[in-house]
């Protein structure tokens, strides 16, 4: 999964030519770390149709807040430069994420 920061966010996420999954996580967020392997598995499965990226909010706090993300974990889909859908906290389960992905493949 591609690491996103404030320098590459526009190019890699907003200007991407296919839908982007962006996994907002943080170094102190245990639920995020528990979720990450499942998202990586989904990346193997759907990686040809959807671009998988992750953003460490501990290092990119302002960028996350500018995306109206103030809670972790949050897994969002970007399409055509806009955030179109997201799952957060308890809703961000592997099953729910896969269902959301299926709408964009």
């Amino acid at each position: 999964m591609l690491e996103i920061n404030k320098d590459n966010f526009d190019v890699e996420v907003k200007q991407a030519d296919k839908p982007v999954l962006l996994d907002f996580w943080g170094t102190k967020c245990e639920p995020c770390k528990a979720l990450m392997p499942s998202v990586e598995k989904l990346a193997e499965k759907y990686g040809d149709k959807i671009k998988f990226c992750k953003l460490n909010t501990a290092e990119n706090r302002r960028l996350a807040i500018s995306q109206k993300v103030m809670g972790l974990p949050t897994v969002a889909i970007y399409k055509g430069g806009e955030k179109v859908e997201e799952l957060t906290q308890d809703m961000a389960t592997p099953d729910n994420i896969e269902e959301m992905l299926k709408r964009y493949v």
Partner: protein
Amino acid sequence: MQDIYDIIIIGGGPAGLSAGLYGARSRAKTLILEKGKWGGQAATTEELENYPGSIEQPTGPELTDRMKKQAEEFGVEAKTETVTGLELGEKVKKVVTENAEYFTKTIIIATGAKPRLLGCPGELELRGKGVSYCATCDADFFTDLRVVVVGGGDAAIQEAIYLTKFAEKVTVIHRRDQLRAAKSIQEKAFANDKIDFIWDSVVTEIKGDGIVESVVVKNVKTNVLSEVETDGVFMFVGYDPVSELFKGMVNMDERGYIITDENMSTSVEGVFAAGDVRVKSLRQVVTAASDGAIAAVRAEHYITEKFE
């Protein structure tokens, strides 16, 4: 038929990990199934100053990580899988997960509890947008901002103190005129000049356009409503048991907590419950660990009686 486990433990928090340690240490074939985050609620608590021996600041994640390693060193199997069904009718019981079926002589339910929702307008819509149930997950976002903490128990006040390391101001909103938290925690909170209190009050609505902007607060004595501007709302208003899957299988109280005797036995032979998921008076890491130990030892006794 595949190998039969002696003990299958559902849940990888302190109760489950302690049961795993005791089970594996007595050479019982023991499996722990955890659906997501190992360590349970303790893994999202930064300060764990009330677990005996946890001086010199081991954090919740560190302590529970050690518990898991310790259990694994004695040979426990630990798998990250979600249990979707149980069959308890036969002497050998079946545990079904999303990818496998397991057979076992005994089951220890250690699924714990999860933070309760407040249930006011705006809460669900603004989750992850300033509404949070996990201070260690989200505190960073509120650096130099204002937050409110709803609740007056140990978790609420401990997390309010933790949040002062980040936020500019922390306002505790509590429905009574005094806190329920342990006195030592209260003293720390009262001495912290970043924390103030709104007493006798409940949050009736969370407002914000895509991100939290304010909460509506009602004084329960005067019924007067007021609006408090804030960037975040941290909820610690209690817990609900994670016991949906076991409804109709084992006896529970009206809130869904599993009823056990002092040996952690449930209403079904060979099925035990440990930790926050059962009816008890004190839900802490230390009592969860204790429950897990008792459940594993009683499970072994049961196996000796019924299978050998």
